[in-house]
């Protein structure tokens, strides 16, 4: 049985895990545009972005696939409530922890042929208008390309 699994499938499985966190929905926009223009902003909208991929050793045999490692950025927005900015920031912290827990929870099928490790976060950075907070959670994924 091949160890390979399409990154698209892994992305979709991560999405499905985040959707189990109350209130969070996937942004229909390109991951990098989340929060950059008014249309792409929305409370608890998230996106999943794999910015790069690198080989991770091995012989890259047919049947085994190419061992790869790549960062995964989960980005999400929280609205800044004008009268409750601190509570709004705490919503970011809660959201961040809930999403990390949802992804790190070693569930099937998310961890089938996939290893995911939490690395770091930037939490609740204000967008230019000051109305939204952007959180980026960084994971490292190890998996295989199918050959």
């Amino acid at each position, binding site marked *: 049985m091949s160890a390979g699994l399409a990154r698209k499938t892994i992305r979709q499985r991560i999405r499905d895990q985040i959707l189990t966190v109350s209130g969070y929905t996937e942004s229909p926009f390109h991951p990098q545009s989340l929060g950059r223009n008014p249309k792409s902003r929305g409370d608890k909208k998230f996106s999943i972005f794999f910015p790069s991929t690198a080989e991770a*050793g*091995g*012989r*890259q045999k047919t049947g085994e696939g190419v061992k790869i490692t790549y960062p995964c950025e989960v980005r999400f927005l929280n609205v800044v409530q004008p009268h409750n900015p601190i509570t709004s920031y705490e919503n970011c912290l809660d959201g961040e922890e809930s999403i990390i827990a949802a992804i790190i929870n070693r569930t099937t099928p998310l961890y089938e042929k996939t290893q995911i490790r939490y690395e770091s976060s930037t939490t609740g950075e204000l967008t230019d208008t000051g109305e939204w907070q952007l959180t980026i959670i960084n994971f*490292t994924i*190890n998996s295989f390309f199918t050959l």
Partner: protein
Amino acid sequence: MAYSVVPKTRRDGKITLIDGASPTPTELEVAYEEGNLSFDIPDEYSSLVIRDRGDICAVRTQDQNIITGTFSFDLRQFTDASEAGSVIDFIDKAGNYSGNISTGASGTPYIEQYCIDIKYDVEGTDHGDDADHSATLSKCIIDSYSVAEGDPTRVTINFSCYGGYTYTGPA
């Protein structure tokens, strides 16, 4: 045809463990390996250098040297009683490979411990060579293996070869 003009890489390599069953040996291709096989083939015999007040005046043949090697692979399972695939089972003569036959039980040198042959195949024809290439190290005793946890967890095998080596290539 001309001598190969293609330097080989780890993508071209394959390691196969072979037991001594006859007429059909049990074989296991090592999967999910790093591609870092190395083996050192010293001069067949060590040398005794004899000096006369510092100047070399004679060199005498001494003991036969031992070939050593190492390779590593990613840990998937330690053992499996029913399914083939465990390198650790193969070298331990355990699990699905508990019935393996030592390659050292017959021939010279006789080796009391369980030992195996290790074959290193190198792709050649895909690159236009006249044939594929291989090196078979006979009667290898696994001196040790170590398990190092990480991403991924890796098993490293160290072996000594007492039966010599055979190379194959274009005729």
